[in-house]
């Protein structure tokens, strides 16, 4: 794959009046990467994208594309193409005219354009649909036309603003694979915005987790999932169980945490926070539902949790057990269905164990509110 054109955000600040929409973002995006910005609604994802595409001038800091400072270069002059949250196809132009609008601007002849449109229509698996109007296509088809229109401009960087959010679940999952394949085929940098962590995890090479204008963590999907660097990232990406408490003792990369509900528990300090947590600090500990295993009743120690079962659920491939958790929230435990049977019942007390490597200790912080 060609190296592709990288994008860098250097100490990027974007303010609307007194409101800070993006705070000191530092991001390096490799050329040819599928890079996602993941964060809840209103955290400033679109704002970052608009700064990259040139619709918004940063209040401070720089946007570099291919190492070149983009300051003062308008959106029509940048090597980026943006796919809008609502697609923004031109309703009065036929599909093929929509797709080749960027060529029309450069003065290409109708024949050339038609030919290119047919190629792209083949690529997005919509052959012979060029003469329709966008309104005559289905949601998923419109989606693909928007992608073709952006690709036709031969951008170095494709920017996608939650392009799948308007589609139904089935189609959304299908389009994930399709998008990923298209990206591999064309080999250009994709910057993808989403609030759906599943989308980000399945498609991206790298992910930036955002919260209220701040980038909490950048890394590949596994790192973000297994080794979150803030309480927010830990609670926003995937399901997670939180244990609040204070640090009792730190030894190497493990910390002993005095939890409010479950006694003293051991956890691995997340990579980003090693050396930063010390005894007496407020801390949070996260264990994923699938990281628990059943333990003999009554086992005690620094990697056992005992709690009361509030609910049970059979999901086919797993048993979900809900227990009284921290801060009034339910704790979820997910045990793979291996044909075993449980003698667990609502209201009973149950003991679980976990591998210390699978529990993450983090400084206390805001949690995602879902």
């Amino acid at each position, binding site marked *: 794959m060609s190296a592709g054109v990288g994008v860098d955000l250097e100490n990027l600040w974007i303010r609307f009046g007194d409101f800070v929409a993006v705070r000191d973002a530092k991001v390096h995006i490799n050329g040819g990467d599928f890079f996602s910005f993941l964060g809840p609604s209103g955290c400033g994802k679109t704002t970052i994208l608009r700064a990259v*595409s*040139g*619709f918004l001038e940063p209040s401070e800091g720089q946007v570099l594309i291919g190492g070149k400072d983009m300051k003062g270069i*308008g*959106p*029509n*002059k940048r090597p*980026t*193409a*943006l796919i*809008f*949250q*609502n697609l*923004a*196809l*031109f*309703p*009065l*132009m036929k599909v093929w005219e929509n797709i080749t*609008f*960027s060529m*029309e*601007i*450069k003065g290409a002849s109708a024949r050339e354009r038609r030919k290119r449109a047919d190629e792209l229509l083949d690529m997005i698996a919509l052959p012979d649909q060029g003469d329709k109007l966008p309104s005559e296509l289905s949601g998923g088809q419109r989606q693909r036309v928007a992608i073709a*229109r952006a690709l036709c*401009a031969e951008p170095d960087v494709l920017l996608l603003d939650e392009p799948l959010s308007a589609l139904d679940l089935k189609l959304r999952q299908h389009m994930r694979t399709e998008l990923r394949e298209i990206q591999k085929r064309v080999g250009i940098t994709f910057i993808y915005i989403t609030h759906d962590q599943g989308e980000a995890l399945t498609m991206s090479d790298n992910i930036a987790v955002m919260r209220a204008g701040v980038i909490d963590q950048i890394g590949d999907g596994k790192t973000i999932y297994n080794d979150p660097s803030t309480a927010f990232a830990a609670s926003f990406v995937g399901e997670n169980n939180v244990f609040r408490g204070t640090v009792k003792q730190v030894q190497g990369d493990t910390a002993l945490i005095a939890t409010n509900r479950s006694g003293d528990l051991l956890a691995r300090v997340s990579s980003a926070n090693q050396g930063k947590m010390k005894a007496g600090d407020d801390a949070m500990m996260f264990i994923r539902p699938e990281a628990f295993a059943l333990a003999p009743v009554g086992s005690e120690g620094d990697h056992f949790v005992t709690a009361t079962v509030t609910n049970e659920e059979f999901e086919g491939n797993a048993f979900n057990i809900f227990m009284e958790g921290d801060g009034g929230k339910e704790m979820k435990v997910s045990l793979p269905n291996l044909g075993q049977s449980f003698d667990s019942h609502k209201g009973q007390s149950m003991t679980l164990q976990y591998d210390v490597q699978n529990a993450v200790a983090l400084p206390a912080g805001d949690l995602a509110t879902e």
Partner: protein
Amino acid sequence: MPRFLKEFFDRNGLGIGSLMLGLVLFWTIGLIIMPQLSMLDFSFRPNLPPPEIGGPKDVYTMENYKYLVFGPEGGSQDFNAVDLKVFYRTLIAAVFVTIFNLILCYPIAYYLAQTKGNHIRIFALMLIIPYWINEILRAFALRIIFGETGVLNNLLVAAGVFDTPFDFIRNDIALYAGLGYAYILLMIFPIYNVIESLDRNQIEAARDMGASWPMIHRRVVIPYAKPGISSGCTMVFMLSAGALAAPQILGGPSSLWFTQLIYQQFNDNSDWPQGAAYAVVLLVTCILLVLAVMRLFKVDMGDIGK
């Protein structure tokens, strides 16, 4: 009963439905179609003193229409050059007023529709409030501005642009300015209405793909705004061609507007049939012209109502 009528009554109930339908029918038939038909009837009759109306001389005739084309019978000229020229000039001038208005109002409408913020409301109010003032007063205000010793001349002479005052009125500049100004809102609002519903992302998408502003307007905004543009142009054209106050007040002494001829026939000559014939010719020509232009630009009649 046709389906749409049934639905209409189902939705509004028989009482309210009949009342609404009755009022609309009274408005269109009683107040518009009937009087116009009676005018049409007038236009085909000779101008007779009241006792002879309904008498043996009261027969249908084309003489009122012939008069517009050929002038008085046995007159010195082959054609009624004076009136025809006024007719022609009126139509051309109305076309130009319309085009000028469109060029002026499209950017204003675009700006109003695509800019957010409170100042837009103030801007719109500033456009609307002058229309609370009576049309005739507004025309006289323009006379004060454009007159020989008017504000504009005083300024221009003081600034040294002209040595002697320029006669804006004799040169019809005041007239065109007045006509242009009179119908500005009728051009701005239909265009504004359509552009306001245009998704800003479409403009940005075009821009993102490298389009220049003229290109964006040509390919994205104007096609979208076409119904509004047609509706505005139609209204401005019809009303300019049919305007009376502005030409009366702002027109130069030697330049007549066709409506002034019609007015003279009705009022000064008391020749209602002749006036009616002139009015019918003006109306029919304007409608045909509008239809032809709509055809040229592929505008549907339904678009106008948008």
